[in-house]
């Protein structure tokens, strides 16, 4: 059974720079297309930078490249991704009467995959 993690999508300055350059340009696309994983979790899953993982939430599934978070930035069990198409695909539509989908603190599972699906 896959281990459960908590995903925190958020802002990064590179993502902000990328928005200005254009959402179809390299800066934005590369910033939103990588998942940051805590060092302990990288070791636990035998992951190295640029490996691929499948991340699954109750609402969707993505395949994405990983990189190690800076030391101390993420505790084990917490994942980070810059806001964008990938994070939105894992987010549910229910806003619980608030207008705001639960966009941070999403329960996900993560498994290593050899390559992206066709």
């Amino acid at each position, binding site marked *: 059974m896959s281990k459960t993690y*908590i995903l*925190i999508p*958020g*802002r*990064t*300055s590179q993502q*902000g*720079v990328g*928005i*200005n*350059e*254009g*959402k*179809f340009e390299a800066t934005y696309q590369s910033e939103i297309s990588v998942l940051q994983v805590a060092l302990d979790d990288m070791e636990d899953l035998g992951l190295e930078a640029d490996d691929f993982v499948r991340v699954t939430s109750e*609402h*969707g599934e993505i395949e994405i490249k990983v990189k190690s978070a800076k030391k*101390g*930035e*993420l*505790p084990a069990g*917490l994942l*980070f991704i810059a*806001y*964008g*198409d990938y994070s*939105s*695909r894992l*987010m*549910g*539509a*229910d*806003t*619980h*009467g*608030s*207008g*705001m*989908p*639960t*966009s*941070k*603190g999403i329960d996900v599972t993560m498994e290593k995959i050899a390559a992206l699906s066709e």
Partner: protein
Amino acid sequence: MATVTTDASQQEPELKIVEDATCTFCGCVCDDIELTVKGHEITQAKRACVLGKAWFLNHSVDDRPSCLIKGQPASVEEGIERAAQILTQSRYPLMYGLSDTTTESQRVAVSIADWVGANVDTTTSVCHGPSGMAFQGVGEVTCSLGEVRNRGDLIIFWGANPAESHPRHFTRYSLMPKGMFVPNGRKDRTCVVIDVRKTKSANTADIFIQLKPRSDFEALWTLRALCAGVELEAEQVLADTGVELAVWQDLMDRMKGSRFGVFFFGMGLTMTRGKHTNTEALLALTRDMNQHTRFVCKPNRGHGNVTGADNVVAWRTGYPFGVNLTRGYPRFNPGEYTASDVLARGEADAAIIIASDPMANFSERAREHLKSIPYIAFDPKETPTTRNAEVAFTVATYGINVPGTVYRMDDIPIPLRPAFDCHHPSDLEILQAIEARVQEIRVQGFQSTEENTSLRPARELPDGSIAE
């Protein structure tokens, strides 16, 4: 409008300096930027942060057509006509976005929504919408950023990461400035960052408190209890928040000992489970603290004029976001009339998206529905939203090509000083034309209907007559 600096004579484009230009990328709305402008390009943006530089240096004139209909180039007039037809033929149009344009455009947009009986929502609903609900429920002890700059001696960031989202927040408003009552600037201030992640902002803090994920509400109520002098069980507090009771007690002692404490909070509170109840807890704590010292609470607003969107929609309809005008009068209900919900439930049958990108940021269900209905999009740049629009307008950029007013995150209106002209129309010009055309179509509709059975109230028409 700023002076046009063309090089029609093949000469070098004119070089000019724009002083005190206003950056509209984030809610800090820094209005002290010095721009060097060469023709239709900004070559330097002095004093701008990394985001501000990217904003100014990457908004030269886009060479896409000013209007696309179903992906094909069209005249702006054709786009206006198609947009008016889509909106007037719709039974439940959605208007969404509005936070990256001027208050002048926002005002006209809400008029259009009123004419067509639309559901109006802004990006606030997926940003600080829950904070808006909390303000209504608890109230807001607030101040301007100028007061923070001159008085704040304990600055607490909760679920916010201004080092990446508002890079000049520290230097311009909250930490570094030497103020009237904090003459030594940073030395006179204590900075606390509370977050689940050790962000770049945490590196700036004197104290960093790393919360257990999704325990903001419990942590805030722990502080409320300590503020009221309630004794708590240390083990329970640690289990609930992931932080020792002694750490919270130390923080409360510092809060009570401060002369002017400030909470800045971000989407770590509003986007996490609990949402508006998290923010309500923070606002209530701020209120409690005023029994001991002066304390205020401010949301760190994201988009350049999202605060203006709240203000304009509130003065036009009485409510700040998530407003339904289909019955001819405004109704407010987050969760029902907010854009993400309206789309995810498949309700809207047409939409007008102004200066935002829901096709990148909304849930899959909401995006799928938006893709299935005709909609109009406005943006200076190509985005996933403009790519799927039935009518896509490429518009001049506010603050760079277009003058007007924006509201800083503390509700202070700031004028824009554009740098150069652009051949694309402003969204204001297009919205005004759509409003005029929508009015014409509505008037024709009223005149051709012998018996108007609409529930909408009678309206005064532009010629002074009453439509019944």
